[in-house]
């Protein structure tokens, strides 16, 4: 069953094209990652499907084309920063969200327990840290037990501990079989959580599919040397190296199947290059992302 079907979606702000004829389908039960560099149109796309922005062209449908106000209440979402009434506490804000969704008795205790805010439920929203605000936003998304969750940069601005906490909560929710659409530019996060991914850049869809189908099955290593230009030239001439991606002062290499890092080290040493960095990387969405977006 198609949960979301987007066809030829376009959004233009003056001379800026935020979305350029984007097509996308999200199926029930998928944990769908929407990745792209900053300004690629992720939030605009989510804003349109949540009806806070109007598309310039194109269309989208929820739940195989179902219509009516009840459709939106089957979706829990937060977009950009968490926005609540600053003078209300967690209980009051969540009760208000329940009223927005027409939910009569929301399980506030369970929701606040899940996001670990039970202790601070009586504190005003304005006194919350960013991490607590994000967690309250997650709880708000879950009011009414929606079938679909839309999360926009859920770990944005959090410290490492907060990121781990929020990520764990999302994984708990995902384990309940809900469909999740998550925009993020933290590729590691998407790779860990999502089953499917769409990569967009400058409002265009570059690639979409299951994470496994996008990731290459070739071994990837990260190498470095004092003279990185010479290293780059050397590696460019090697037949066992299928792809080279620059990453800071290091090079990410995709090797021919059957080649390992020891072979590579030996070849470099034989050519007079001493590697000062050699790490075998697991198949990484980051590598694919950099490759795809640089094309």
């Amino acid at each position, binding site marked *: 069953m198609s949960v979301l079907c987007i066809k030829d979606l376009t959004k233009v702000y003056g001379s800026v094209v935020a979305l350029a004829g984007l097509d996308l389908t999200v199926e029930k039960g998928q944990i769908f990652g929407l990745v792209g560099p900053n300004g690629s149109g992720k939030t605009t796309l989510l804003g349109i499907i949540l009806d806070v922005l109007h598309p310039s062209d194109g269309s989208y449908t929820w739940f195989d084309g179902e219509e009516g*106000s009840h459709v939106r209440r089957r*979706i*829990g979402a937060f*977009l950009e*920063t968490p*926005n609540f009434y*600053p003078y209300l506490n967690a209980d*009051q804000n969540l009760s*208000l969200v329940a009223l927005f969704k027409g939910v009569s008795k929301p399980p506030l205790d369970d929701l606040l327990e899940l996001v670990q805010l039970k202790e601070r439920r009586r504190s005003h929203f304005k006194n919350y840290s960013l991490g607590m605000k994000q967690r309250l936003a997650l709880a708000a998304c879950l009011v009414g037990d929606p079938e679909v969750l839309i999360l926009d940069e859920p770990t944005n601005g959090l410290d490492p501990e907060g990121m781990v906490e929020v990520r764990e909560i999302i994984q708990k929710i995902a384990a309940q079989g809900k469909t999740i659409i998550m925009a993020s530019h933290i590729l590691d996060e998407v790779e860990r959580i999502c089953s499917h991914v769409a990569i967009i850049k400058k409002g265009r869809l570059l690639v979409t599919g299951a994470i496994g189908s996008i990731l290459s099955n070739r071994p990837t290593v990260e190498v470095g040397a004092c003279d990185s230009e010479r290293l780059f030239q050397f590696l460019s001439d090697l037949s066992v190296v299928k792809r080279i991606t620059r990453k800071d002062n290091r090079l990410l290499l995709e090797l021919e199947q059957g080649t390992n890092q020891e072979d590579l080290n030996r070849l470099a040493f034989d050519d007079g290059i001493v590697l000062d960095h050699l790490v075998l990387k697991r198949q990484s969405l980051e590598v694919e992302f950099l490759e795809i977006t640089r094309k």
Partner: protein
Amino acid sequence: MNPLHLLKIEWSKYATNGAFRFFTCLYVVALVLGVYLARSIGRAASMNYSGVATPLESLFDYPQNWQVLAYIGSWLNSFVLGSLGVFMITMEFSNRTLRQSVIFGMTRLEVGAAKVVWTLTLALAATGCYVLLGLIWEAHDGVGLVLPPAGCTLGYYLQALGYLLLGTLAGMLIRQTAMATLFFLAYVFFLESVIRWIFYLNVGKVRLLLFLPVQLLGGLTPLPVPDSVNHIFYSNPATMPLSTTEATVGALVYMGLFVAFFSQRMSKSDL
């Protein structure tokens, strides 16, 4: 969603808000004080002319007492309710909660309808204050409890509603609380008069200018001044105060236009 549910949503938003509580308390307290002052002045005037009924004293007899009370309330409608209208909408914009309501699952139509229902209810509450205070006044004077004439109550309600909507409009256009409040108060107490006088001086005294929003809303709760007195102050028929019928029809047209504009903005613009 039914209107009661929408009302519950808006009540949950504002009931514990400090600024909302301040404005509502200010409205009630200032209305009571205004009436107290007006009565004190009336009593002082009759004391100066002991035993002789002065024109000022007669303002406190039925039905003029209701008109005087409405006139006192009209200042608070413009100042307090108008500012409240500005605050309620700009607070939503500054916290981005109007947009968030849609993200959380309300339709744009429901968000707009909730605001309209809430505004209608606030105007009703303000009118309730007016009627209650008038009855207390009558009870205190021992003249027997007589409800206000229907025209007075309707005029008061429409005026309260009109200023709430005018404040909301200013808030929607400017979105920043301080700037929008400043603009609203400047328009109500200063700018519209300036506009009218510019037209008077350059175009001439055109009656149509009395249909500008503030002038029109003021016409809903006129001071109970006899026509003979009006004729002394307003020699030109073009500047004679609006009749309550003219003011009522004009106010209803304005409110219709505002609600249409609000609905259009809510449904068509990006949030």
